[in-house]
């Protein structure tokens, strides 16, 4: 055997020794997996090489095989009275998420490719499709915020370039969860970077990669919670567009394997297996990757040329797991031979297994028919991008890797891709035991409102948004910020990707991990509703919306955490089905926890829902800032006493109990009515709706204040008029002001359209609750008719803008 390759003796090892070996080699293999590997190799009467073992560990990693989502789960739900309900779940993914998408696919004809590719693909119009994907890059960003976040965005851009036969990226969306930015430096555990340093680094990483690639960053969110201290979440998403008919692809036997783009180095060795381990003080540095956006831009540009020349049959990106994952996936129904010494390296001295699993950035794999190889290489070289043949696809269903003419890895595709034992897991869920606090009724809520506006999750994200280019490519027509002073927070962004068409795409998201502390089911329902109502709020419709799920959880071995996952996934099924908004792709990330000394800190179970909505007439966009004095202010949707996990309770140090719920049937009806109304009128003077904003974090009071100070136009509202459901004792000023009940909008309507608006919204809960004012004030009359808020818009705005001014 070659000196660069080692035989790893596993056949005679006991469980404990295998566990140690897994830790030493960073393989993240569990005991059932070791057993399957031992059985395979004892039949072959030999030990694996290091290349083989690394290949198996990479292919079987949580990152690549989604073991938790495919596990058999024994789920037990204990209700408030102690009654148990049991459920045996045969794959969360198949039983819930895929099930609902398949059901919706029978009614909606615009799904092109779901769950099978790098990204979800849907139809845009008769000539183009859209590809959408959101990834996470949490652990790398904890270690090196700048590089980790940059390569996160770089990776998801490559997912889009490699979606179908290749899409052109047209927008980015980025959502972050950080520890508290004012965390005391003196209390910082060793080897953890300060949350503010992580926040600034991540922001700069996303900025530099996205801006330099020339892709606008249009949408996002930032959440702060102390449990993200050692394990921030960095969600990076990209939307792409491609001509129709390029949605499917397959490599063919005899095709040459060409690697294009960056060179291979030691960057990011063991990234995927590392993603399945907890971060500890001794976590090594090799998983850190450094990105190079200029390299990726060059590579992307040539790939799109090669796509249009139809030079290749299949394409995929090298992400987690490097060549092993990319070539392994492309060849799983075929087989392949790869000559590792042919891969261009950044420097000498890499062992064959390192070349095979390295996660060096900016690399893509093409499957090119022999007759096109020369033309392909010439095309790439003309643009100064390296393109190198490193092997070929075969038909023998074997993975064969060579290094300097020595066979260093030979694995059956069947074992590699089907040999992974399914996990059997236990999950448990019970309702939270917290209670509703009794907060004293206040005479005025001016100060409370200002403090809530300044809470970091609600406060203006302008200092971050302004670092991102949202104009490049010239297609964004509803920007992240709007209003008289260009600083009001729009609910979603709209791009019009084709210069000769008025059709648009809306990008939005929904996330609220705090609700998950009370009930992950309603957290997921709320996140879906938030993503959808954001689309409705900017003038979109619910007709054609595709969703992505993105689960970031702690350890799935924790039965309660897994129980929360089951709840959340059930909600994803239930609500996507009622709204008829299918999930088209997704991502999961587990083991988001951190050990300091002897204490394990797990992140809050966090679900990000990202949505794209197709808009037939993008010119019907609506921004959230008030437009003129003398307009009517309506609220649509019902308010409940749902202050559980609200920012109002958080401000007072409570969590409460009444988590916001979703009545999807009623909400869907409302959304259909609203989008019909938003589509009326061509000129601004003909539009029934002049401004619209959804009520989310901070409730009605925050949404109304934001509309007013964004437009710098005053507003007066009366709480007694707002539709409220619930016991009379629950109908209180604070609940109406700050309850975060879902599916609600505040709408500005010119007085001349009063009748027309009301007749069209009839049949839904709605009420005329106020007017816009000449004076620059935000005034709220409480239930007894007395003023409980009377604040200057400028003061409210500065409270909202001060917190994150860094």
């Amino acid at each position, binding site marked *: 055997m070659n000196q660069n390759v080692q035989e790893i003796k596993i056949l005679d090892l006991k469980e404990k020794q295998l566990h140690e070996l897994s830790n030493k080699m960073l393989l993240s293999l569990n005991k059932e997996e070791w057993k399957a590997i031992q059985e395979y190799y004892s039949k072959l009467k030999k030990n694996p090489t290091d290349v083989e073992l690394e290949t198996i560990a990479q292919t079987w990693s949580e990152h690549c095989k989604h073991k938790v989502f495919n596990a058999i789960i024994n789920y037990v739900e204990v209700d408030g009275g102690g009654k148990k309900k049991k459920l045996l779940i045969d794959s969360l993914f198949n039983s819930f998420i895929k099930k609902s998408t398949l059901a919706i696919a029978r009614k909606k004809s615009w799904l092109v490719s779901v769950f099978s590719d790098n990204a979800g693909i849907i139809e845009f119009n008769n000539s183009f499709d859209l590809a959408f994907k959101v990834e996470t890059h949490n652990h790398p960003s904890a*270690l090196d915020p700048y590089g980790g976040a940059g390569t996160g965005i770089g990776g998801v851009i490559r997912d889009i370039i490699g979606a179908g036969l290749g899409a052109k990226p047209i927008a980015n969306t980025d959502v972050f969860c950080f520890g508290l930015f004012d965390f005391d*430096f003196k209390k910082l555990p060793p080897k953890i*970077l*300060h949350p503010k340093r992580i926040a*600034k680094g991540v922001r700069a990483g996303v900025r530099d990669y996205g801006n330099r690639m020339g892709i606008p960053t249009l949408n996002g969110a930032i959440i702060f919670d102390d449990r993200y201290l050692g394990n921030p979440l960095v969600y990076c998403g990209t939307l792409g567009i491609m001509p129709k008919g390029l949605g499917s692809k397959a490599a063919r036997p005899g095709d040459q394997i060409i690697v294009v783009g960056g060179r291979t*180095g*030691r960057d990011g060795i063991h990234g995927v297996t590392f993603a399945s381990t907890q971060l500890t003080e001794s976590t090594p540095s090799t998983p850190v990757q*450094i990105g*190079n956006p200029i390299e990726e831009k060059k590579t992307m540009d040539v790939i799109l040329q090669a796509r249009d020349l139809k030079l290749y049959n299949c394409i995929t990106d090298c992400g987690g797991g490097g060549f092993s994952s990319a070539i392994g996936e492309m060849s799983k129904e075929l087989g392949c031979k790869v000559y590792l010494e042919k891969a261009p390296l950044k420097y000498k001295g890499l062992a064959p297994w390192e070349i095979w699993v390295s996660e060096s950035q900016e690399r893509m794999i093409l499957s090119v028919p022999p007759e096109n190889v020369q033309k392909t290489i010439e095309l790439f070289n003309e643009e100064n991008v390296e393109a190198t043949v490193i092997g070929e696809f075969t038909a023998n269903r074997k993975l064969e890797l060579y290094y300097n003419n020595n066979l260093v890895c030979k694995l059956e595709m069947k074992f590699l891709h089907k040999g992974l034992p399914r996990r059997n897991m236990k999950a448990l869920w019970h309702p939270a035991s917290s209670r509703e606090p009794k907060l004293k009724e206040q005479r005025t809520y001016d100060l409370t409102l200002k403090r809530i506006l300044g809470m970091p999750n609600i406060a203006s994200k302008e200092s971050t948004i302004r670092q991102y280019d949202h104009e490049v490519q010239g297609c964004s027509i509803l920007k992240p910020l709007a209003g008289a002073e260009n600083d009001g927070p729009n609910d979603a962004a709209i791009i019009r990707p084709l210069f000769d068409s008025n059709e648009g795409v809306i990008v939005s998201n929904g996330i609220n991990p705090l609700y998950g502390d009370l009930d992950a089911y309603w957290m997921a329902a709320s996140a879906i509703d938030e993503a959808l109502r954001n689309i409705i709020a900017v003038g979109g419709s619910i007709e054609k919306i595709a969703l992505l799920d993105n689960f970031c959880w702690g350890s799935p071995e924790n039965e309660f955490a897994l129980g929360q996952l089951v709840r959340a996934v059930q909600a994803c099924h239930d609500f996507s089905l009622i709204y008829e908004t299918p999930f088209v792709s997704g991502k999961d990330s587990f083991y988001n926890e951190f050990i300091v000394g002897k204490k394990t800190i797990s992140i809050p179970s966090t679900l990000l829902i990202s949505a794209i909505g197709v808009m037939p007439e993008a010119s019907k966009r609506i921004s959230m800032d008030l437009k003129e004095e003398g307009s009517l202010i309506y609220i649509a949707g019902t308010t409940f006493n749902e202050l559980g996990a609200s920012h109002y309770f958080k401000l007072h140090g409570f969590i409460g109990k009444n988590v916001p719920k979703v009545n999807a049937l009623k909400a869907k009806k409302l959304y259909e009515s609203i989008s019909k109304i938003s589509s009326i009128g061509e000129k601004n003077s003909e539009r029934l709706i002049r401004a619209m904003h959804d009520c989310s974090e901070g409730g009605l009071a925050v949404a109304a204040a934001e509309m007013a100070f964004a437009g710098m136009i005053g507003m007066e509202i009366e709480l007694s008029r707002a539709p409220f459901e619930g016991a009379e004792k629950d109908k209180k000023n604070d609940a109406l002001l700050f309850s975060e009940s879902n599916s609600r909008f505040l709408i500005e309507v010119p007085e001349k359209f009063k009748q027309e608006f009301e007749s069209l919204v009839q049949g839904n809960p709605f009420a005329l609750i106020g007017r816009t004012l000449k004076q620059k004030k935000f005034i709220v009359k409480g239930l007894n008719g007395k003023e409980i808020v009377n604040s200057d818009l400028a003061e409210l705005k500065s409270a909202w803008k001060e917190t994150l001014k860094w």
Partner: protein
Amino acid sequence: MHEIQVGYKENKADFTAIALKSSIEQDLRIKGIRSLRIIDVYRIESNLFPSQIQRIAKELLHDPVTQNYSIEKPFSFQFDWLIEVKFHDNVTDNVATAALEGIEDLIGRRFRDNEWVKTARHYLIEGKLSEHEIQRVCKDLLANELIEYYSYRKGHK
């Protein structure tokens, strides 16, 4: 080995340095910095003629509108502390790679295996900061020790 340093002109604002100074003051709560200057350092291992190095500095590595360069010797700025941050070996250094490509184009030949470019950054600080404070600036702000290496020394007046 050749060394080229590039820094902002006295009368031009370096916004990276301004933002960094405010991070030190606001995030680390370390006061007393009178001035902070950032110098980009390029180390080139290759047998090049002085005229070639001159061209590389003048035509490739510095922006003549806002920056000055210094060849084979540091700038003559005064400082109380000088911090140097550079990558560990084998960590991808994109700036160095881009500089190398530019140099190859300028001199009209490819670099051989034993020739290379590496980058480093110098932070020149004027102000009464203690050694402990300088260490905090290095560890908590300037260098990520997983991928970067830092060193510092006291200045001379």
